[in-house]
Every structure is written in structure tokens, then in C-alpha cells.
């Protein structure tokens, strides 16, 4: 009678035991990137498998999920599911998602494929490979979910081309380029831990519950379907951190530096989510500030308490970020509203009801600093003078967001920092971004800053209009400008039979 194998032993035999010691070539030539970051791995066998899924079960579970998911996509398009969304303004959040976030899933696929080849430890390697294929799943299911919206709304059609070029999309693109350009361990701390474990709830929960509150079945379904993948990704991210910290005490300061960096970079990236929640969802879920408090301050706080035993501290600038939650969404939507002619989605002034909601959710800041701007914008719009800024914004060299954030202790004062490197001056939106640059200037001087590139004539021209239409391939007058008077709005009214 065969003895029963416990799951751990079985998984070891089916996975870890496949590896062998090389005799004919130097193992370092097979896994050449394990040392240059200064991380010390003394024993890969101490790696605890974060999940134990063999390929046969993987195929089986994932196929069941895909079958259900695609049945809903089919029904969604057959029944013109896009007609059920709360308000056509909502669809702009999806445009931002497809152009800004889905390509990151692709980069996650590439990044995890890279470490899934390069890690010397077979356990870590296989876990990363599974995340690689999951991430490929995410980008592809998102493309398929949005495929129907693309048929009926403007702004989705050239998401990939736009992601490579458009000024604000360089924020998410450079974030992932940064992680992928780093060594394999920094990549894992950046994406596996900081992004997937600490910040992922702040990206996906808002988008998915935003979809649920706004009648978007397609997005809700892929979001839920991706959740069990994400649960695996989170356990991998946590295992990586624990493994690195337990392997050698010299790893602690390196990991801390990466946590500080990626936490800052991550919160900058989440600005788009903040703005989406507070301004782009017609039916609100919760305010960005509330989301930050629930998903970072509470959940993250207890995580870092847990990591304290390894000597890991709360990320640097956590306090600054606590103040930022009162401001970033308002400052970001203002940037997009005023640059609405150069955006690949529509912008608008919040309705009076929405302004009141913002006043209520941000009692300390909204009426004082931001509501007056919108009242002014309303007056101008009423006079037929909808306001667009003609100037191109200066971008932060690190996070690439336009320099529009203020000093958090003085929201009337735009925050400027700079550093000189090799005789050139570089500008930053914050101390966090300046620190990141100062630590690795030779990396960040390479940044492909879209506005600099336009000024240097590398994006066509001569006018901004030409850049938008020829280089970005935006359909001007369709993809961009205010929601009011857009073809999206006209079609919606036609479908709904309203004047």
C-alpha cells in the first residue's frame, strides 16, 4: 500500500527536487544576476514555498475560471452591457485603466518571467513563473473585457501606442521600467512586495468596487476572477521579504532602502487612483482618503509592526503621505482638467452634488483650497470660456508627474526640489523623488521625460496639436477635451433616447 505524502513533501518532490547541481558549467553563468545588488543568499533551500500548486491543478482551476469569465464577456457584448453603466463619464476611468494599468500587467509578466528564469532557487523560480503567466492572463483578460467598450467609446483604441508615448502615461510606464531595469531582488521588493502586497488593494479594490457601483459587469468579473491569482501573488511578495531578511542581516538595510523607494514611487503612481475615486466615478465608493486609511494606515501599519522584528521600519515619508491623502486627488484632477485637450480621455467639472460630497469627505482642505477653483471653472464654463492651459507642464525627473503638488504644510506653495548631476540640474516634485534620484542619478538621468522630448523635437510638431494627433495618435475632438459636447456623450444620449 502506497504511503500518503503530505502536501509539502509531495510539492518538494514534484518541484524543488527537479533541480540539480551543475557539473559541466559554472552555475554562476546560469544565474548571473544574483550578486550584483549586494544581497546575500546563503541557502536557497530555506525558501518556503508560498503556495503549492502543481501545473495540473493550475490548468484545471484556471481553465474553470476562464470559462466562466469568457461566458460573461460574451453575454456582456451580446446584451450591450455598456448601456448599463451609471453614466458615460464612468467609462473614462476604464480608458485610464486600459492605457495606464493593463500595460503594467504586461510588464509584470515580463518582469516575473525574467526573475522566473534568473533566480537560482527553484522554489522561488517556479513561484515567479506562475505569477508571470498569471500577469499575462491579467493583461489579456483586460484587453478582452475592454474590447466591447472600445467598440462604442473613444479613447481605448490605441492604448498600447499611447502607453509608450503619452505624457501622463510615462508615470506608470516608468514605474515598471524602473523595477524591471533593477536587479532581480529589487524587482521582487518593488513589485512582489511593495506593489502586490502593500499597495495592490489600493489599486484593485477601488477600480473593481468602482465598477460594481457603476454597473460595469465586465470589469467586476475580471476583477473578481483575478482575485485568487492576487492572493497567490501576495503570499509570494511576503515570502520574498521574509526570505531576504532571514538570509543575512546585511540584507536588512538594502531591503529597507528599497521599501522606502518603492513605497514612495508606489504612492505617486496611486495618484491616478486617488483622482479616479474622487472625481471620475459617478457613483462613489469611498473617498481616496478613506481608502488610504483603511488599506494602508490600518493594514500596512500592522504589517510593518510585524516586520519590526527583522529591523524593518515604516517607509520613509509615511508621514508626508499621511498629509498628502487630503490633497493629491484634487491636485491631480485639476492638472488633467486644465490639460484636458492633451488627455486621451474626457475631463469635466464635478457636479454640484459631487462638489458637496468632496466638501463633506475633505472637511479640512476641500472648501479651503480646492472648491474655489472649481467654482471659478464653473463660472468660466458658463461664459463659454472652458479653461485649458496652453503651457506644457514641467515634470518631476523621478516620478514624471507634472510639478503640481504643493508643500503639504502649505497647499498654496508648489513644491520644488532639485539636484545637480554632472553639471545639469534636475527637478523633483518632492523630497521622496529627490532622494531616489540622488541615490542612483545615473539611472534617472536616462528618464524619457515626455515634455522634454516634445521640446527637443523628438515627438513631431511643430505644435502641441501635431504631437497629439500624429505622435500620440489621438483623434482630436473625439478622444480628448471636455466630456460636455464629446462624441461619447452624444452617442450615449442617442442610445438612451434623451435629448
Amino acid at each position, binding site marked *: *500500500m502506497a*504511503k500518503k505524502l503530505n502536501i509539502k*513533501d509531495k510539492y518538494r*518532490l*514534484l518541484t524543488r*527536487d*527537479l533541480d*540539480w547541481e*551543475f*557539473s*559541466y*558549467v559554472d552555475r554562476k*553563468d*546560469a544565474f*548571473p544576476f544574483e550578486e*550584483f545588488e549586494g544581497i546575500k543568499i546563503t541557502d536557497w533551500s530555506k525558501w518556503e514555498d508560498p503556495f503549492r500548486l*502543481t*501545473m*495540473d491543478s*493550475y*490548468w*484545471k482551476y*484556471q*481553465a*474553470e475560471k*476562464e*470559462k466562466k469569465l*469568457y461566458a460573461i464577456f460574451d453575454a456582456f457584448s451580446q446584451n*450591450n452591457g455598456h448601456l448599463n453603466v451609471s453614466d458615460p463619464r464612468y467609462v473614462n476611468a476604464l480608458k485610464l485603466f486600459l492605457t495606464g494599468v493593463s*500595460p503594467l500587467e*504586461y*510588464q509584470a509578466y515580463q518582469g516575473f518571467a*525574467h526573475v522566473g*528564469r534568473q533566480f537560482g532557487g*527553484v522554489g522561488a523560480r*517556479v513561484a515567479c*513563473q506562475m505569477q508571470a*503567466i498569471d500577469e*499575462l492572463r491579467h*493583461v*489579456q483578460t483586460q*484587453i*478582452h473585457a475592454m474590447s466591447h467598450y472600445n*467598440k462604442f467609446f473613444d479613447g481605448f*483604441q*490605441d492604448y*498600447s*501606442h499611447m*502607453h509608450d*508615448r503619452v505624457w501622463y502615461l*510615462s508615470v506608470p*510606464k516608468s514605474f515598471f*521600467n*524602473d523595477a*524591471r*531595469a*533593477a*536587479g532581480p531582488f529589487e524587482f521582487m521588493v518593488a513589485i512582489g512586495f511593495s506593489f502586490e502586497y502593500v499597495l495592490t488593494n489600493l489599486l484593485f479594490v477601488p477600480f473593481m468596487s468602482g465598477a460594481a457601483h457603476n454597473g460595469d459587469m465586465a470589469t467586476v468579473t475580471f476583477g473578481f476572477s483575478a482575485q485568487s491569482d492576487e492572493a497567490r501573488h501576495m503570499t509570494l511578495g511576503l515570502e520574498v521579504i521574509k526570505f531576504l531578511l532571514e538570509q543575512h542581516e546585511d540584507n536588512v538595510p538594502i531591503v529597507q532602502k528599497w521599501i522606502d523607494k518603492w513605497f514612495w514611487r508606489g504612492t505617486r503612481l496611486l495618484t491616478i487612483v486617488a483622482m479616479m475615486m474622487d472625481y471620475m466615478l459617478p457613483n462613489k465608493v469611498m473617498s481616496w482618503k478613506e481608502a488610504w486609511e483603511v488599506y494602508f494606515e490600518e493594514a500596512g501599519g500592522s504589517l510593518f509592526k510585524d516586520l519590526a522584528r527583522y529591523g524593518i521600519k515604516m517607509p520613509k515619508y509615511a508621514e508626508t503621505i499621511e498629509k498628502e491623502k487630503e490633497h493629491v486627488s484634487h491636485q491631480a484632477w485639476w492638472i488633467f482638467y486644465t490639460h484636458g485637450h492633451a488627455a486621451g480621455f474626457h475631463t469635466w467639472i464635478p457636479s454640484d452634488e459631487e462638489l458637496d460630497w468632496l466638501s463633506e469627505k475633505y472637511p479640512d482642505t476641500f472648501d479651503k483650497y480646492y472648491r474655489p477653483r472649481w467654482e471659478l471653472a464653473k463660472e468660466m464654463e458658463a461664459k463659454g470660456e472652458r479653461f485649458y492651459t496652453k503651457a506644457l507642464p514641467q515634470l518631476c525627473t523621478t516620478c514624471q508627474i507634472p510639478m503640481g503638488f504643493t508643500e503639504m504644510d502649505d497647499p498654496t506653495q508648489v513644491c520644488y526640489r532639485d539636484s545637480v548631476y554632472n553639471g545639469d540640474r534636475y527637478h523633483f516634485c518632492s523630497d521622496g523623488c529627490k532622494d531616489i534620484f540622488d541615490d542612483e542619478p545615473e539611472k534617472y538621468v536616462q*528618464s*524619457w521625460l515626455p515634455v522634454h522630448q516634445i521640446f527637443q523635437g523628438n515627438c513631431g510638431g511643430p505644435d502641441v496639436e501635431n504631437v497629439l494627433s500624429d505622435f500620440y495618435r489621438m483623434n482630436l475632438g473625439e478622444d480628448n477635451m471636455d466630456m460636455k459636447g464629446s462624441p461619447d456623450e452624444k452617442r450615449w444620449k442617442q442610445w438612451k433616447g434623451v435629448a
Partner: protein
Amino acid sequence: MTIEIKTATLEPVRNTYAHIERRFGDKPATRYQEATYDVQSEKYFHYRPLWQPEKELNDPSRTAIKMKDWYDFKDPRQFYYGAYVQQRAKMQEVAENNYAFFEKRNLMACLPDGMEAKIIKYLIPLRHLEQGANLNNMYACSYGYGTAITQACLYNGMDRLGIAQYLSRIGLIIDGNTGDSLAEAKQAWMNDAIWQGIRAAVEKMIITEDWFEVLVAQDVVLDCLMHELFYVQFDQWLQDNGAQDIGMLTEFMQVWAKDNNRWIDATLKIAAAESAENKALLETWVSDWKQVISEALSPLAVEMLGSDALALAESALDKRLMKAGLFK
């Protein structure tokens, strides 16, 4: 009587994404097309990789093969993630039934004497070879260019992990879950003279730099020769010697090879048809690796199947190479 079902038809503004329309015209696209073409970022990368500063993050120059359009590598199976996992799920369901039946009927006990030892010596060590294939396909996936070919390499890489796991389970059926047969097979892989040639070749392949060369060495040359020796000829030998039931446990690999060959043969053909330079390069790689791998497999093939076996396998390889447009 005809029933008229009224559905509201709304006129779409466009049929598909703009990059798909530029390639295939303004008509509804397939899921494979939308999931594949132009999804990978092409330009304006922000930073050079610290681990390879001479290249961009996505860089077609990681291989000497040159393509005007890397999306020419259409997968004839049209596998995007959803299609891939559903196809493999069907295969694993059959495999699961086979393994369950095999174990329930205790078919291992019905094998002729000495057969288990042969399986441990010749078949189970392939799990390590499959692990090498996993690394090699992940290499091609991560250094390759364009979603069309890299996603197919990823699927292949995951398949190889799955196959390594099926092979391991054959061992666990033999040893009653003690893992002893896996240890014995690993000993053979590590120390047996007949396995050392091929282990050395696999290790060498793993440190080969050009990812397309790795793909040719692994997925074209080694896979074909291995398949012919183990899953065709050795399988035949098992059948001839009263061990045909083992075929239930290797059916997955048989079906898989057919499926995978459709892709790799098409890939080879497309790369060779692109230019005379590509064709010459592919021929060099194939010849070099064919020599290395044949030599490496020779002692194993002779001991396992006799002196004609390898030549037979090579002729199967040559046929496929001809079909792909090489060496003519």
C-alpha cells in the same frame, strides 16, 4: 413557423483596436489577435537594465535572428492565455483519469520483471531534462521579443514543468510515494555514464546566450530527438515487452508533442523564410546542436534501444527540418 427574435443592434464606432485594424483591416478581430498583436511595449524605454546595460528592456537584438515584424510568429494554435489553459485542462483531465485508473488497477504490479528498473533508469531522469527545458523556454520568453513568440515560450515553459511533474508521479507510483525511485533516477542523471553526455549538453544549453539559439537547441533539436527516442521508440519497446500500460502515463507527453510541434515547426519555418541570413544562421545552430546532442544521446540510445535508434531519430528530425525549409 419562424420566430423572430428582436435584439437591439447598436452600430459600433469601430470593430477592434486601432493597431489590430492597421494590421488586419476594419473588421471584428479574434481574441487571439487582440490578446497578442502589439501588446508589448516597443519604444521609449526609460532606463537601461542594470543587469544588461548594453540593451534596452525590450530589445530585439538579444538574438542574431532578425525579423522585420516579430509578430509574424503567429501561433497556429492561436493560444492566448484563456485558450491555452482550457486546452491543457482537457489534456490533464484525461491524464488524471489515466493515472487514477492505472493506480486503482495497480497496473505497475502487472509489469514484467525488471521493467520498473528500466523505467527508473531511462524514463524518470527525463524529469530533470524537462526542468532544463523549463529554464530554456523561460529564457526565450524573457529575452524574446514580441508577444506572439514570447507567450508561446511561456506556455511551453509551464508545460515542461507540468511534464516534469507527471514524470515524477510515475516514479512515485513505482516507489509507493517514498520518493526512492526519484532519488535513484536522479543518481542516474547525476552519475550514470550514459546520462552524462546529455546532462552536459543541457547545462551548456542553459548558459547559451542567444535566446533563439536556445530555442532551436531545446525545442527543435533536443525535443525532437528525445521524443523520437523515448516517446516513440522506447514506448514501442515497452509495448513489445509487455509494458504497454505505461503508455497511459505518457499519453500526455505524446499528445503534447503533437500540439507543440505545430507551433515550433511554424516558428522555425517563419524565421527561415524571413531571410537567407536567418536561414543560414538557423542551419548553423541546428547542425552544431544536432552534433552535440546526438553525440550526447548516443550511449543512452545504444544501451536503451540498440545501435540503429539514434539514426532513426535523426531522420525524423531531418524530415521536420526539411519541412520547415531548412537545408534545401
